[in-house]
């Protein structure tokens, strides 16, 4: 009966029985995920309500291009939104819960019963600087949050918090992030997510592809997170809505199974030629993965001295565009009882090898506009008992990409990390049941993620549309409480 609840939660009939009997069994909402490669119009047929703000035209354009029907919260916004949506022949309408309608509602609290479900709510809070303006977030979201569909999305677009801003302004911007984390916990029950999209001054043009991904089913397990878009990395390729990695070469370490395998598959599905790196012991699995996606294999231990050179030789003169440092190990023991070998092994694979291989590739093989992606972990953010070595190595990568980003930005290269939370893999299946179940429950979405969720996040960060994101660590954790 190990994961009975998990199985129960995905069974429609079981869910209705539990619901009808009002049993005190928490059944997490199955998340809507996307199968296959990126679609031209992932939001086809979906309604998205957009608030007024400086970025209205850009937001509406991105939504219309993705196939969504845009609803604005005020008739005064129609002209601007319509002009933007017209490019993709999408009509724009005024949302039923518009300001006029809600002020007519005496209580102003309950959402209109006749208003329809919406896939997403997008609040443009980039102009918010005062507590009075902050109230507009409440006015926009409160009547509508109940109308959010299962696996819906809330995205708040804001400016970055900065100690150089006026204290009041900085307070308001910080408030938005706090509000979003709370909303994530409220809407998580229905599989919906809430995230903040922070857009730096001058990086507005890099916002649309990130918004698009946050509204896509591909970001299903990303919630309560901030994603920051800046103009730090020099411009490189222009974004593509389908096959974003067409013609690119990607390197994935630890590609034989789990997240590495899912990542190799996701990158290949978006058009990349993938070179799968794993140890000689996993030759059969690695070959299978590579063969299925038309990639190639380099059998190597990432810690071996000659591995960087062997990788560069395998890449050939074309070089590489995307490097995913996924290979990682655990050797858990509380610190006092941890052997030096356990410390050295974990730091060697998870950190030293990453630095050495990246340095070697940066000397020439990594092309301008490229991507360095590291697999960090929520364990590196929160720290886990018995994982001093592992937590150290995973925290290290957060600092590594932060500093690396500045160094490679002039070449248009971005460096980012992903911090997975509880992901259903061979590694987590070995955790004792009660702890495992706690790992799933202690998250806004009340469940574990899939390797594909991490792979999709990596494919997105690898895409040209993520040029604005660098030096960041993105949690793919379902809104886990740990370390948040």
């Amino acid at each position: 009966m190990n994961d009975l609840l998990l199985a129960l939660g995905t069974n429609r009939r079981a869910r209705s029985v539990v619901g009808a009997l009002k049993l005190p069994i928490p059944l997490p909402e199955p998340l809507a995920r996307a199968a296959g490669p990126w679609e031209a119009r992932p939001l086809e047929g979906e309604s998205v309500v957009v608030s007024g703000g400086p970025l209205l035209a850009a937001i509406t354009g991105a939504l219309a291009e993705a196939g969504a029907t845009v609803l604005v919260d005020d008739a005064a916004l129609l002209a601007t939104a319509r002009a933007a949506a017209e490019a993709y022949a999408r009509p724009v309408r005024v949302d039923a819960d518009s300001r006029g309608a809600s002020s007519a509602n005496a209580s102003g609290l309950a959402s209109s019963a006749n208003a329809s479900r919406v896939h997403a709510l997008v609040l443009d809070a980039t102009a918010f600087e005062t507590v009075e303006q902050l109230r507009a977030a409440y006015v926009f979201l409160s009547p509508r949050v109940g109308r959010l569909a299962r696996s819906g999305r809330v995205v708040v677009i804001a400016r970055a918090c900065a100690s150089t801003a006026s204290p009041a302004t900085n307070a308001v911007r910080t408030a938005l992030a706090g509000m979003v984390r709370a909303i994530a916990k409220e809407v998580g029950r229905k599989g919906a997510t809430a995230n903040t999209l922070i857009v730096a001054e001058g990086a507005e043009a890099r916002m649309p592809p990130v918004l698009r991904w946050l509204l896509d089913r591909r970001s299903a397990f990303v919630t309560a997170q901030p994603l920051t878009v800046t103009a730090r990395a020099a411009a490189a390729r222009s974004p593509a809505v389908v096959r974003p990695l067409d013609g690119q070469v990607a390197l994935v370490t630890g590609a034989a199974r789990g997240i590495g395998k899912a990542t190799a598959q996701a990158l290949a599905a978006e058009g990349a030629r993938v070179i799968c790196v794993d140890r000689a012991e996993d030759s059969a699995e690695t070959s299978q993965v590579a063969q299925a996606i038309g990639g190639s294999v380099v059998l190597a231990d990432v810690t071996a001295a000659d591995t960087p050179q062997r990788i560069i030789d395998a890449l050939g003169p074309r070089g590489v565009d995307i490097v995913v440092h996924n290979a990682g190990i655990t050797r858990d023991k509380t610190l006092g009882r941890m052997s030096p070998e356990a410390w050295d092994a974990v730091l060697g694979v998870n950190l030293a090898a990453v630095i050495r291989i990246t340095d070697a590739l940066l000397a020439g093989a990594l092309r301008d506009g490229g991507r360095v992606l590291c697999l960090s972990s929520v364990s590196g953010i929160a720290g886990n008992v018995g994982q001093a070595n592992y937590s150290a190595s995973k925290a290290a990568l957060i600092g590594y990409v932060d500093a690396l980003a500045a160094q490679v930005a002039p070449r248009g290269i971005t460096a980012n990390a992903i911090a997975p939370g509880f992901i259903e893999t061979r590694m987590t299946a070995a955790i004792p049941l009660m702890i495992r179940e706690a790992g799933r429950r202690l998250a806004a979405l009340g469940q574990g993620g899939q390797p594909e969720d991490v792979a999709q996040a990596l494919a997105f960060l690898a895409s040209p549309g993520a040029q604005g994101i660098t030096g960041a660590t993105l949690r793919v954790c379902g809104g886990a409480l740990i370390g948040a």
Partner: protein
Amino acid sequence: MGTSNSSKRRAVVVGGMRTPFVKAFTDFTRLDTFALGAAATRALLARLDLAYREVEGVVWGGVILPGGAPNVGREIALDLGLPPSAEAMTVTRACASGLQAVTLAAAAIERGEADVMIAGGSDSTSNAEVKLPQQIIHAFAPLALGKPAVSDYVAALGKLGPIGQLIPRQPKIAERTTGEVMGESAERMATRWEITRQAQDELALRSHQRAAAAIASGRFASEVTKVEVGDGTWVHGDGLVRGDTSLERLAKLRPAFSKEGTITAGNASPLTDGAAAVLLMSEDKARALGYRPLAAIRSWAYIGVDPADQLLIGPALAVPKALDRAGVTLADCDYVDLHEAFAAQVLCVTKALASASFARARLGRETAVGEIDPAKLNVRGGSIALGHPFGATGARMVTTMANELAASNKQLAVLGICAAGGLGAAAVLERV
């Protein structure tokens, strides 16, 4: 391809001729696509008094190609008794097939491959082959092609599935990739571009009125030939034009593709039988033979869009591309001729061309391609009134616009055609 370059050989339209266009399964039911094509081509050569030996090649467009002889152009040439040395090919680009034939012939002339070419297209929807389901073909082909034993027949019967899958399917114009019937695609576009039923009916009415006026004034006499349909009966003119229709009558028609829809039989092009042929020559050859060319083919363009998105928006991208290649703007054009698959589609395309937002997102330019003055658009009616024999329409449009430029002594006309598969086609004609 299809660019303007004054130093190179120019392909000119010497003349064009078409059969009357009639509703499918009416007067032309006994004429197949070969007979229709031959009728148009024979009349064209007779009217221009061209010696058959001058014809070097035939490029023909068709959509419903006969399985037994898909190279329709060659069959027409042989049926007519053109010299066997006149080569021939048949092309298909859905509803843009006729224009494709004309531009291929123009390309051959520009490249110096030929001086005299016939280009055109025809389709007989009345003679579409009803297809057997593949399951039957796969089951019985081994029997037909081998030396079967009795047991093989029994085995073949065993391979057949449920009876419902064995009934020959009614042919319909559905996209292979999306399964959507073209009218449904047009209906979705009308919703997205917020095109009203009334606007569609108004465009349809204008199409009928202008076509009827062209017929009444004798304007089409030089480009439509009478056709004998057997036992001495002749069809003299187009059968679908309703000059006396009205907005009231059109408004009464029921939506054809969805209950709440706006597309009706009245504001869509009907299934039609017919053929059209164009005589193209190099400019020098035309003059040497004593012809006064009507117009030159100045440029053309073909593009593709995602059929699952806006199937019929293609002309909004092809028209600016052809205009760019010609080095002219939409405002420079004296006439705009858009194939009317559906009134809704024409209105979507004109709205897109007038949209700066569309131009920025889809064409990468800051300003809209331009507004189209209704007085310049489809001045002699379009496919809604005249009908739309798929392969013939492009050649019909080239003929009508070439005649229009010559008769009115105007300079430029641009043509736009949408086609199944999400294709768009356009061409620019200029007065010689």
